């Protein structure tokens, strides 16, 4: 009988709660459907912005962006909704298709921007005049927001350059110097790296390696090669063969410590220096243990043979948003040096604007790096990188290549075999791509 009582209590509770839910939700519902007040401002005097923007993203720092924009334009309210995880894309797609509860501005990650960029629900920012704002942008950052028709559809507020980080003490021990310029020179090409790597391995008696992982070559090569799909056909840049052989040599000569990017061993090697050089993006410093400032001045940054970047977030406007003008002001704001300068100081994220790079090059410091000004190195590297517009296959094809070729390096497979099984995977996953 006790159970019955207990159960009927639960049922009663449910009834009450469910009714409460109904009430609560009606009040909270309908996010983002309030049209902005688009009163035309008086002809004279600066236009004061008013209205409400809904921004969708997958990470929480966008709130800060909204807050800064609100601070600048007190009449504006920015509501930031965060949807973490892979399925953010599914949610965005579903919402766009239904046309209800749609955000005015939404974030797209670099990994899948190519799939969204040509969709008809993303507003053409070029037509609204964004190109003017992007004239001093780092080319690769700007071009990643360009659709197939040549118009800009999305804008990023940062670049995410990577290069070689090293522990100064270890560099002295194994390379004979900790000077960034000298080291940059010593590792200026892959051939030099292999030769130097052999020496480091031998001189340390097999205890230290020059690089963390041969796979770093993929990351660096990925954005310095031709697009994977051209005119509907699979296009394997001939440079990949060289890169592949470079990796094989790196592996065969013990140049790398075989530690995967961001793995536990990788993090340990970065901190204790069993590998001299760690190829990593500027944002990966959270892996460095800086408790009680013990890593201050511990590191140096040298140029990698070619520039590379990892990750990036782009922001677009919903084509049918009733607040397009205001949304455009928001995009313009994140493209401005004003915001990017603030963001650099606050989070250390490298800017997208070349001007911000130049203005801070001599002053911006990272305490882990001591006196070195890392922006100089990053600026040179990012400027060299080709601007490539995204397409819907690029990233997925690259990840297949990374998988198959990475496996090939481990098993020491020949390049031709790797290409053959790569083609098989691509053909299966994307029947629309012509594979010969």
């Amino acid at each position: 009988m006790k159970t019955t009582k207990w159960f009927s209590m639960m049922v009663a509770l449910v009834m009450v709660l469910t009714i409460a839910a109904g009430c609560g939700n009606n009040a909270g519902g309908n996010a983002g459907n309030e049209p902005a007040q688009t009163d035309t401002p008086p002809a004279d005097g600066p236009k004061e912005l008013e209205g409400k923007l809904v921004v969708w993203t997958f990470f929480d720092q966008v709130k800060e962006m909204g807050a800064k924009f609100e601070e600048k334009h007190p009449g504006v309210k920015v509501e930031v909704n965060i949807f973490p995880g892979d399925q953010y894309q599914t949610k965005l797609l579903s919402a766009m298709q239904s046309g209800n509860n749609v955000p005015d501005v939404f974030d797209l990650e670099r990994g899948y921007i190519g799939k969204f960029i040509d969709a008809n629900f993303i507003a053409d920012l070029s037509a609204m005049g964004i190109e003017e704002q992007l004239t001093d942008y780092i080319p690769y950052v700007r071009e990643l927001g360009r659709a197939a028709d040549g118009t800009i559809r999305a804008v990023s507020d940062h670049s995410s350059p990577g290069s070689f980080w090293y522990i100064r003490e270890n560099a002295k021990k194994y390379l004979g110097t900790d000077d960034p310029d000298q080291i940059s020179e010593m590792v200026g090409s892959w051939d030099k790296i292999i030769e130097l790597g052999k020496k480091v391995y031998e001189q340390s008696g097999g205890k230290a390696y020059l690089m963390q992982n041969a796979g770093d070559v993929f990351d660096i090569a990925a954005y310095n090669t031709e697009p994977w799909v051209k005119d509907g056909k699979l296009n394997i840049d001939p440079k990949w063969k060289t890169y592949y052989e470079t990796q094989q040599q790196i592996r065969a000569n013990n140049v790398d410590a075989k530690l995967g990017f961001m793995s536990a061993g990788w993090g340990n090697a970065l901190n204790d220096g069993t590998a001299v050089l760690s190829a990593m993006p500027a944002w990966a410093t959270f892996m460095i243990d800086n408790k009680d400032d013990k890593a201050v001045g511990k590191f140096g940054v040298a140029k990698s043979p070619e520039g590379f970047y990892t990750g990036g977030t782009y922001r677009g406007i919903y084509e049918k948003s009733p607040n397009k003008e205001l949304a455009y002001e928001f995009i313009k704001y994140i493209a401005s040096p004003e915001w990017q300068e603030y963001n650099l100081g606050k989070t250390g994220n490298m800017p997208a604007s070349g001007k911000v790079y130049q203005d801070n090059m001599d002053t911006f410091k990272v305490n882990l790096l001591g006196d070195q000004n890392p922006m100089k190195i990053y600026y040179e590297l990012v400027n060299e990188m080709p601007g490539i517009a995204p397409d819907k296959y690029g990233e997925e094809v690259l990840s297949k290549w990374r998988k198959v070729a990475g496996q090939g390096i481990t098993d020491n497979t020949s390049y031709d075999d790797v290409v053959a099984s790569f083609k098989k995977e691509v053909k299966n996953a994307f029947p629309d791509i012509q594979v010969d």
Partner: protein
Amino acid sequence: MNEATREPMRLGPIVAKTVMYLFLILIAITCLVPFYSMFITSTHANSDIARSLLFWPGDQFMENYNRLIETVNIWRGFANTIFITVAFTCLNLYFAALAGYGFSKYNFKYRGGLFLFVLGTMMIPGQLGIIGFYKLMNALNMLNTYWPLILTGIRDAFGIFLMKQIADSSVPNEIIESGRIDGYGELSIFHKLILPLMAPGLATLGIFSFIGKWNDFLTPMIILFDNDLQTLPVMIASVKSQFSSDFGAQYVGIVISVVPILIFFSIMSKRIISGVAAGAVKG
């Protein structure tokens, strides 16, 4: 067989018991250690978490906690999740027991076929259905409400299956008969006589559906829009910077979210036993 089984008991029940307890404890350790590590991890900084399994407490708990509450309204999420989970679990238990009992004890036409249909609904992978589900909820105007999260408790094929099997083995037909003789209606028989008998099964299903709902990530993420309406798992996963997750803060969130599960589990786990006492008295 007789010899083999009795010998150790006769020779040394203590040895047999020791072996048994060692076995129990060994397995318990494999389950406890990762769980313990989860708590410990919440007291460390991000740079440590990604590098090794942690077993010694660190001193970063409050820092991690502060970063967590700075970015998300975690206690609001806690309340939301409790509300959704409790409502869902109650609906789920009641209707699963109802249908399970119906399938078990009433010999209606097409019973076998209908039951197979119920099982069949579990066999289609749900990952893609989420798109259709979104469209449907949009059409029914239920987006950004808790209705889709709670009402789906009615149609839980897994629960119905479990309750049917429990009813098959623990509800004697004589009890139903005696209820009918006493002049109870069919539904009051179910409420007054059957539900108490099914208590062990209800507690079991309660554990499953409570924990499952508590940890549900995808549906709330897709259905809800306002940050303040979101559930704990979604809020916890939101604590990330542009490029990487803030594991330290996320682990604090996970610790917060595990506590109610443990409480609910220990209450329900005892019910599995006490239900039997009730059943024994009846029987």
